[in-house]
């Protein structure tokens, strides 16, 4: 079931943003998919790139995988332990961590970049397909929540809020 609006090519941002609002108001939430964390490399923040079956008809696999891989790269950049993080840590310790009252940490800077990236992805790719990605930080960095919307105006071919079999189980 295609989304509400024609897939944007390089349409202007104003129209696309308008569509994001329209998505929430004129579509009804059908289902939510939760992309779980991938702990194979330890406790660093990384999400599974496995393509959930619920999205098979909604979005191309490569687009989805690109989004998750880019997010994983952002988080890896934020949590990288190297020269810059040592410098930040030592400087902060020397000032009894009071410097964080005025300075933004590297992680916070990357989180802002992530928020911007997610909004951009929603506007360009996901909203036109009736999907919406929630920033993982709003879910405790545990999951990437993807909401699947159905057009209210469509005829009863939508899947409604049918429960999904546990096909995404490991």
């Amino acid at each position, binding site marked *: 079931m295609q989304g509400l609006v024609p897939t944007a090519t390089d349409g202007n941002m104003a129209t696309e943003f308008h569509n994001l609002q329209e998505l929430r108001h004129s579509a009804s939430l059908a289902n*939510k998919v939760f992309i779980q964390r991938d702990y194979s490399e330890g406790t660093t923040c990384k999400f599974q790139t496995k393509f959930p079956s619920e999205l098979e008809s909604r979005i191309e696999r490569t687009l989805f995988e690109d989004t998750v891989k880019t997010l994983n790269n952002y988080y890896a950049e934020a949590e990288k332990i190297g020269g810059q993080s040592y410098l930040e840590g030592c400087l902060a310790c020397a000032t009894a961590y009071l410097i964080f009252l005025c300075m933004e940490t590297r992680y916070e800077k990357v989180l802002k970049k992530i928020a911007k990236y997610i909004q951009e992805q929603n506007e360009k790719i996901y909203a036109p397909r009736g999907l919406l990605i929630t920033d993982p930080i709003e879910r405790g960095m545990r999951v990437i929540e993807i909401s699947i919307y159905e057009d209210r105006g469509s005829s009863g071919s939508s899947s409604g809020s049918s429960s999904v079999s546990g096909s995404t189980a490991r």
Partner: protein
Amino acid sequence: MSAVMITRKVRKWEKLPGKNTFCCDGRVMMARQKGVFYLTLFLIVGTCSLFFAFECPYLAVHLSPTIPVFAALLFLFVMAMLLRTSFSDPGVLPRALPEEATFIEMEIEAANGNVPAGQRPPPRIRNVQINNQIVKLKYCYTCKIFRPPRASHCSICDNCVDRFDHHCPWVGNCVGKRNYRYFYLFTLSLSLLTIYIFTFDIVHVVMRSVDNGFLSTLKETPGTVLEVLVCFFTLWSVVGLTGFHTYLISLNQTTNEDIKGSWSGKNRVQNPYSHKNILKNCCEVLCGPTYPSVLDRRGVMQEDSPVSAASAAPSSSSSTNPVPQTTKTTAPLIPNEHTPDEAKPSIAASPKEEHSPDTKGPPLASPETDVETSIAKDKTH
């Protein structure tokens, strides 16, 4: 005419589940029982005040003025670390919202298959492989999530905390991923401060006794006796604790894992998080990135009712989720088993157990989730 209701902005910390107390409109987050924390504050501030009042004037004149200056700097650092440990979010994991909880339940149901009636369903465990080790992720019945590796549920604060170390009554908060380095620096700097004050107390008494005699020295500076007493008992415990945590850091282990013996080497189980290099382990724990809090304490709650004034205001962290954060999650599809989280051991969380006032022995409360090692329900609950 429609009446306009002006509702107060409700911030998210007011609706957070769990047993934390919040101050300064959500900026400060602590455990509920703060009595021992006030004791810690009193002991540190009291002992240092006595030092500045009695010893410092004499030592500044007879030895060097840098002595009180350095003591002051050290004292300020200790206080900064203590307050930072006590007031910050240790790395609490927010509870699952209803849809996420339902999603997980369905996955569990699918994974378990058909359980014959009358039989207990298998325990909710997920296995992950981390660096060639199988690590079991346990399901938290309170928070309705599978706990990430190294996370544990604190029964005193009723939260799952990431990289949970222990709940420290002396700082009045859990020690977890976000505040472990501050906790370590607090114990380290407190050790240094204690040694410093103790040493200069002795130096001061010796120097004064040479001039005036021992007994009259004690009469002139009665504070010294008190300080020496406090420092003596503090030394043994705090220095010991610092040493213990240095050992843990060099192995990249948490107190919780150490107590449970998770990586003790039985069955060829090794710590998958350790870099096998002491320096690397220390650098990761002490100089790693400063993790952000995922609890949006000061965000404004989205009100759904149209008359509410708050709904018009965009929240500081826009929530795209149409479901407002609730304190209770909906009942799961599968009825709750007796939750293993309920049976928590309490290694005497009462502060009266310690004789010495400023001792910091091994963690007094160690929340456990293992049914096998659970002792008694936390009596301070």
